[in-house]
């Protein structure tokens, strides 16, 4: 076992292998970021830890599969699937928020958390009722099943595309939140709901909007993940913990925090599995522990203001 570990280590001095690992890390990171960003948004504004985010992610993947299958795998059907996932999840989120969640805003974190837990149970079973227990395969979108040739090495094109999408999402969200009035309103809503209403803002609408957008992002994340993984029950379970870890190490509700957190998780996972193969199970947790011991409130978070 030891000798084998050493061999893997020695591969790290091989530039092609290093390039692969580097790309692997970034693509995993961006993949996770796309999924986690919706969670960050919801957590930041609604202060709700949305356990159902993973279930929404799974649902998005299923919707994408159904769309692709319905269209017989025609060119472009995958991208329609992504849109469909966003729309369906957005609509679901709308119903959940308007019908139930909004009555719980005044209550404790724990109540809201268990609420989302209940949603996990329900959404999971609804998915099972619709799609059964089979696993499904979504082919890579047309023209993206191959690899891009960098001269010295080839790297699969689809993960590369995910990196680009991740970056676009990050920059887009950042611009929207910090440079627009709506962004400021959303941030204000995280801090004092009642006062925001007293300034004439339709806070319930803001909340609904944020929940819908965040959930649609989960759906998009699921649809975008679908070509790389088996679409099946249970795919929600691991992703939600990874998303939590990202959000926490980034600092609650911080966009760039979760961006960096996702990248960190990508690198730690990819290099960790090579250097400490026996620790793969807990690499993510160790990353989180280490980070929180170093910066207790995450990369970009800070302690709640205490009263003067």
């Amino acid at each position: 076992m030891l000798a084998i570990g050493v061999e893997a280590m020695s591969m790290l001095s091989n530039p092609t292998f290093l390039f692969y690992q580097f790309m692997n890390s970034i693509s995993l990171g961006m993949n996770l970021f796309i999924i986690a960003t919706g969670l960050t948004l919801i957590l930041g504004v609604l202060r709700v830890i949305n356990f159902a985010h993973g279930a929404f992610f799974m649902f998005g993947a299923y919707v994408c599969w159904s769309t692709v299958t319905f269209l017989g795998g025609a060119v472009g059907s995958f991208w329609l699937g992504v849109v469909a996932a966003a729309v369906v999840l957005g609509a679901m989120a709308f119903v959940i928020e308007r019908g139930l969640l909004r009555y719980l805003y005044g209550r404790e974190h724990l109540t809201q958390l268990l609420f989302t837990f209940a949603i996990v149970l329900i959404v999971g079973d609804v998915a099972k009722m619709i799609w059964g227990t089979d696993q499904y395969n979504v082919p890579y979108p047309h023209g993206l099943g191959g690899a891009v040739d960098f001269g010295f090495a080839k790297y699969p094109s689809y993960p590369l595309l995910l990196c680009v999408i991740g970056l676009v999402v990050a920059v887009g969200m950042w611009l929207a939140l910090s440079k627009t009035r709506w962004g400021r309103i959303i941030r204000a809503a995280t801090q004092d709901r009642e006062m925001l209403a007293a300034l004439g803002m339709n806070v319930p609408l803001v909340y609904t909007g944020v929940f819908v957008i965040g959930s649609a992002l989960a759906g998009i994340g699921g649809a975008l993940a679908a070509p790389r993984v088996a679409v099946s029950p249970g795919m929600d379970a691991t992703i939600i913990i990874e998303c939590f870890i990202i959000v926490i190490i980034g600092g609650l509700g911080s966009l760039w925090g979760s961006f960096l957190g996702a990248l960190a998780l990508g690198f730690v996972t990819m290099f960790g599995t090579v250097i400490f193969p026996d620790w793969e199970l807990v690499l993510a947790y160790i990353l989180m522990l280490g980070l929180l011991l170093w910066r207790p409130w995450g990369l970009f978070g800070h302690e709640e203001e205490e009263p003067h």
Partner: protein
Amino acid sequence: AGAADIKIGVLYPISGGGAIYGGPAMRGHDLAVEEINATGGVLGSKFVTVARDSKINPAAAAAAAKELITKEGVNVILGGLASSVGLAISEVARREEVIYIATIPKTIKLTTSKLHPYVFRTASNTDFEGDAMAQIVKKVNGKKLCDIQLDYAYGHDLGDGIAKALPKHAPGANIVMKLRPKLGATDFNAYITQIMGAGCETVVSGLWGNHFVNFAKQAAPFGFFKDHVYITGGEIASHEVASKLAGDYPDNVWSNTYELWYHSPTGAHKKFQARLAKKAGTNATAMWPVLAYNGVMLYKAAVEKAGSTDAAKVIKAMEGLTIDTPMGSLTVDAKSHQTNTGQFWGPMKKQSGEAYRRMEPVTFVPPPSK
């Protein structure tokens, strides 16, 4: 009429991630019970199924097993999926002195270190599987092997099984790299690139179900399956994986399955297949039903032979018992309580005009004789 029903407790995961397997298994189980009852039952009694969700949680499965025994008063327990669940149910069976037939769990411990009189297994085990894979390594003339297994009991045991069997069947082959991704892993890129870097021409593996699907989908764009022969346990040749991956199923894969709907080694299988197809509403059926089906049939035969449902008598009857199954005859080893369940092995080939891969040729590999 007259005699009381015989209650069969059955435990498969029917909720959550494990439901992919538990659902089809239940179908096979129900088919067996229906057939038995349609032909007048056993000793004049009907079989009645009491099903519970084992989840993939041993403590929950143990609690459910206890409930089946103490509340429902079942005569036997069938099922299990994960190894830990199998062991947990087995422990309850031992204490409550009720027979447990493990239909899916493969962990070797069940019939070795944790063996007790009440536990039997109709599933294959990791040593059988490793032995078959070593034979294929020989067949494809593999020399430099990479071994990738999931980091949990089944993966470790299968890895050991392969390592044990290699010197016997393929002495020239050498494992140069062992990789152990975690159970439930979804991103295999780090492993794919490591194998590519290590320069193996052959990969042995036990990545099952979704793990294989994810691995294959992520490896394909690298051109991975052009350069590597991929020999794998974990029933990757089964219909559920082949049909779902369809055109994305990679080339150069050798794998196994308990059953193939398109391949009938016996006349009994044809009939079984027809009935199952009717129940499932499709010809192309999964592999899991036959496992559950065989478990019920084994118990039925043992009760008939014992002439009673008394556990001690049934155990006696079961030891050394041989029954006919859709897959051929099956014998219970009197000492280890393990049946000689074999598996089909072969390369997966593209079919002309179809995306769906089939095993071609199909070879039945019986368990190694001692």
